[in-house]
C-alpha cells in the first residue's frame, strides 16, 4: 500500500537531510506508529505520502502509484484516497459539524444526495450522532478531533494519515480517539500515525517505526514506544 525506497529529503535551508535513505514498506490494512523526537522526520514522512513534498532522492509508492511519475493534475485523485487528521483539528470555525464533514465531499464534486446520506452515517460511526448542528467551538477537544476523523474518513479512503492526533488531548480522551482509529483500521483502512504518546503506543501493541535524525532506527511489529525512552 505504501512503499518508500531509499528516500532522502533535504530542505535547502538545512544542512542535515530531514529524511536520510529511508526504506519502509507498509501493507494494506496495517496500523503503524511512526515515533521519534521532534525533528526526526515524521511530518516530512507523511507529507511525502501526500505529494506535498517531493523527495530529493529515492521513490515513494502509494496505493500502487509511483509518486515521482504522478503528474500534478492527478495529485488530487491521490489525496482523495488518503484521509488526514492533525493535532490542531483544522476545522472550519464558521461551519457546523455536519457542514465541516460535508465540505470535504462538496469540494470534490459529490452530489447533494450522496452528501446528505453519507454525512450522518459517518458522524454516527465516530460517535457524534445528534451533534451535527453544533459549531466546532461548542465541542470538546476530543469531539472536535472526532469531527476531523469523520471528515478524513467520510470519503472511505484506503489510507488514513494521523499527525499526532492526540497531541492536544488528555489521556482518557486520547484513548477514545485511539479506539476510533482502531475501529477504522479494522474496516481495512491502512492507518499511519505519527505520535509522541508512549502510553498509547505501548498499550496498542502495533507495528512501530522509529525515526531518529531522518533515519529508521527501529522497525518492530507489536512494538512499544522505546526501550529506554
Amino acid at each position, binding site marked *: 500500500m505504501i512503499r518508500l525506497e531509499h528516500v532522502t529529503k533535504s530542505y535547502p535551508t538545512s544542512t542535515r537531510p530531514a529524511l536520510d535513505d529511508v526504506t519502509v514498506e507498509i501493507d494494506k490494512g496495517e496500523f503503524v506508529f511512526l515515533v521519534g523526537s521532534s525533528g526526526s522526520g515524521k511530518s516530512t514522512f507523511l507529507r511525502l505520502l501526500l505529494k506535498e513534498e517531493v523527495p530529493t532522492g529515492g521513490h515513494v509508492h502509494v496505493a500502487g502509484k509511483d509518486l515521482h511519475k504522478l503528474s500534478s493534475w492527478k495529485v*488530487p*485523485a491521490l489525496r482523495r484516497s488518503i484521509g*488526514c487528521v492533525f493535532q490542531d483539528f*483544522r476545522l*472550519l470555525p464558521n461551519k457546523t459539524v455536519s457542514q465541516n464533514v460535508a465540505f470535504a465531499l*462538496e*469540494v*470534490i464534486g459529490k452530489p447533494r444526495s450522496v452528501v446528505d446520506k453519507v454525512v450522518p452515517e459517518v458522524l454516527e460511526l465516530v460517535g457524534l450522532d445528534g451533534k451535527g448542528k453544533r459549531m466546532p467551538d461548542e465541542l470538546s477537544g476530543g469531539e472536535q478531533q472526532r469531527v476531523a476523523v469523520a471528515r478524513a474518513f467520510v470519503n472511505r479512503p484506503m489510507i488514513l494519515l494521523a499527525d499526532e492526533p492526540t497531541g492536544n488531548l488528555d489521556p482518557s480522551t486520547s484513548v477514545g480517539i485511539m479506539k476510533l482509529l482502531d475501529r477504522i483500521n479494522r474496516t481495512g483502512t491502512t492507518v499511519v500515525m505519527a505520535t509522541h504518546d508512549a502510553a498509547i503506543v505501548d498499550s496498542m501493541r502495533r507495528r512501530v517505526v522509529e525515526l531518529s535524525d531522518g533515519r529508521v532506527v527501529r522497525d518492530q511489529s507489536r512494538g512499544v514506544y522505546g526501550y529506554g525512552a
Partner: protein
Amino acid sequence: MRAQFVLSEIGIGLRRNLTMTIAVVVTVAISLALFGSGLLIRAQVEAMKDFWYDKVEVSVYLCGESSQAATCGGAAVTQQQRDEIQADLEAMPEVDTVFYESQEEAYAQFREQFEDSPDLVENVTAEALPESFRVKLEDPTQFAIVASAFAQRPGVEEVQDQKALLEGFFNVLNKLQLIALIIAGVQVVAAVLLISNTIRVAAFSRRRETGIMRLVGASNLYIQLPFLLEGVLAGLVGAGFAAGALVAVKAVLVDGQLRPNFPVIAFIGWSDVLAILPWLFLTGMLLAGLSSFVTLRRHLRV
C-alpha cells in the same frame, strides 16, 4: 461541479473583500470608460470623414477688383481667363465636377449663412466676395495636383482645400483619442495590480478553507474557480459602469448638447455605441480573468 457551492464561495469572497472589490470595480470602470471613449472618438472621426469627404470641394477663388495677390496683377479676372480655367479644370482626370459660383451667388449664400448677424451682412456687398469654381475631386486626397496646376495662374487668387480645414479638426480629435487611450492604459496597469492584490488577499483570508480543500483532494479548478470568477465578476461590473458612462455621454453630451448646437456636423449614432459595448465587456472580462489567473498560479498552487 456544484454550481451552488461555487456561487456561495464567490459571494463570501466578495463580501469579505468589499473595499478591495469596490476599488477594482472603480478602476476597471474608469479604465474601460476611457478606452471606450477612445473608440467613440475614432468612430466620430470616421463618421465625419464619411459625411464630409463626399462633400468637400476644392475652391479656386478668382481675382476680384480689389485682390492683392501677385497672380491677379491688380485687376479682376477676365472672361477669357475664366473660360480657360474652367476648361482646364474640366479636362483634368482627377476632377469629378466643376461648379461656378458667381459673386451674387456667393453673396446669397453668405447672407443665408450669417442671417443671425445683420450687422455683418449690411457691411458686405456682393463685390467684396470672390467668384469661384467649386471643384469636386474623384479622390479628395488629390488636392495637391489641382493646387499646383492652378495656384500660379493669372486670374486665380487662391486655391483652397476644404479638407485642410477638416483635417485640423480631425487632428484635435485624434490627439484626444490618444490621450484617452494613454490614460486608459495607465489605468489598466493599475487595475491589473489591484486585481492581483485583491486575489492575493482573498486567497490568504481563505487559506484555511483552501488548505482543507487541497488535503481532501479538491481539484485545482475547484479551488481556483471561485477566486477567478470573483475577479471576472468585478471586471464585468466595472465594464457595466463604463458602458453606462458611454451611453450617458452619447445621450446627454452628443444628442443633448452637441447635435442641436452643431446641426451641420455628422455625429456618431447608437449603432456606433452599441458596437463598442461588447468590446468593453470582453476587455473587462479578459483583463480581470487573466490577472486573476496569473496571480492564482503563483499563490494557490496544489
